[in-house]
């Protein structure tokens, strides 16, 4: 099995988002970075499949030079090597998909290509689907269950009433959601090994955006001051009174 997983470096925003002065980006000077939770599960799933069936896991990212950190994190989980399309700019979904398609074609064939259902930051819900159309591959999205065997994938989505099941022949593209598995914490030796795994980096130039970001805006808060019902267990009667008023007690 050859599996490619696409990941994206995103800041760990914590409790409050602060923008840069020009309103074009999140102020990240004091923030750590990670990949989207959905993608963490995608990497874990790919590694588990290859651990069971043999093969190779390749991680692909489009992002700044610092995104190598995220490729190394994926390799600490068990990916074998990384491909890094280096650009400091923010790309729209169409341009992102086109760049990924070019990189995937250069490394093809893959049996399975894995995306997160949507990125944590931009949330465009479309890059994986655009890549599937460009490559002429079937795509199933939003998976919380995946079984790959005998050249086929059985894929499950969670719905309001249960689960929807799809079956597709490989090669195929899937997009996954957090909850597909519980990703492992990489061990220290695994992190050290990851530093020696190969990353192929290549600078890429951004084409014009067709969904053109003008500015970012932090939404106005609820503008409310919380009513303090009390400190410690003595607050219980006041809490029950509120519950009764809300009609839930």
């Amino acid at each position, binding site marked *: 099995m050859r599996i490619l997983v696409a990941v994206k470096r995103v800041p760990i*925003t914590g*409790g409050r*988002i602060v923008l840069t002065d020009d309103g074009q980006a999140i102020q990240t000077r004091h923030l750590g970075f990670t990949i989207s939770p*959905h993608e963490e599960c995608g990497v874990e799933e790919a590694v588990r499949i290859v651990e069971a069936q043999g093969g190779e896991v390749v991680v692909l990212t489009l992002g700044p030079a610092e995104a190598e950190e995220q490729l190394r994190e994926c390799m600490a989980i068990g990916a074998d090597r990384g491909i890094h399309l280096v650009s400091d700019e923010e790309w729209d*979904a169409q341009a992102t998909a086109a760049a990924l398609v070019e990189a995937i074609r250069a490394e093809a064939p893959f049996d399975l290509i894995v995306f997160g259902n*949507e990125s*944590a930051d*931009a*949330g465009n*819900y*479309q890059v994986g*689907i655009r890549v*599937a*159309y*460009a490559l002429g591959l*079937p*795509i199933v*999205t*939003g998976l919380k269950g995946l079984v790959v065997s005998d050249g086929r994938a059985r894929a499950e989505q969670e*719905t*309001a*009433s*249960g689960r*929807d*099941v*799809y*079956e*597709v022949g490989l090669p195929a593209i899937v997009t996954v*959601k*957090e*909850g597909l598995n*519980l990703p492992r914490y990489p061990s220290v030796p695994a992190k050290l090994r990851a530093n020696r795994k190969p990353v192929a980096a290549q600078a890429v130039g951004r084409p014009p955006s*067709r*969904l*053109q*970001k*003008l500015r*970012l*805006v*932090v*939404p106005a*808060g609820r503008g*409310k001051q*919380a*009513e303090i*019902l*009390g*400190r*410690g*267990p003595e*607050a*219980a*009667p006041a*809490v*029950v009174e*509120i*519950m009764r008023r809300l*009609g*839930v*007690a």
Partner: protein
Amino acid sequence: MSVLVLIEPDDELALQAVTLARSLGGPVQGISIGPADAPVDVLHVAQVDGSYAPGAWAAAVVQLVERLAPSAVVAPGSDRGNEVLAHVAARLDLPLAANVTEMRGDEVTRQRWGGSLLEEARLGEGLKLLTAAPHAFEAAAGRAGATESFAPALAEADTAVRVVESVGASTGGISLAEAKVVVSGGRGVGSAEGFAVLEELAGLLGGAVGCSRVVTSAGWRPHADQVGQTGTKVSPELYVACGISGATQHIAGCKGAKKLLAINGDPEATIFAHADYAVIGDLHEILPAISAELRKARAA
């Protein structure tokens, strides 16, 4: 020029999408795959056999777009709405703005970070493709207009990916997404066993237990219990956040709650900035006291 909106039967989010479609001006036409009921001027019912197949739905939308030449296509910001419109965007090689909260001319405001951040962006010339951010619009009301039926031409590839089996949920109890009260715990709960006091209160209130991402990552609770940007989005009458700091990832999942009660030992916790009611202190003392008070009130 008209606006075309994708309708799913019995879907509140589709009615919200109709409201966004109406805000764009012009007649609103609907497309549904199979019968549906929606307050649109004309509903085009596509005759597509069998279970859900995103490619077939997208093919139907694209063929109707070619016939009606609308100014925009709007879909609900649901899993299927976002999926089908992304297929349409890929087929037509057009940009797609997902989870839009407002549109003015060529400019859209859309949600990033599960709604914790907004992006103002410009869509180019020509057909606009948008999905409506969930709960950013009132549901459209009114009478259904005329209904027309059409049979889209489908290629084999359009139905290659389709639902082959639907499995009902096996879990009992009240679902997190529909519970009227959610009692939710974060890092401050301290352990899997620590959730017993949340279970007790949720049980008394006929509610559900939720948790933050820290909790599922630690393995204290299953992911199905996670409230957040990458978990379940809830909209109860009351959300009780216990030992939850208030990261944007979590707020994205619980901002739909009508009222939020935060219980936290740290008076500076971010969660209080999102709360209607606050209790400061140790949740392991406070929750049993609330449960005892509820029992006492009911016995009286």
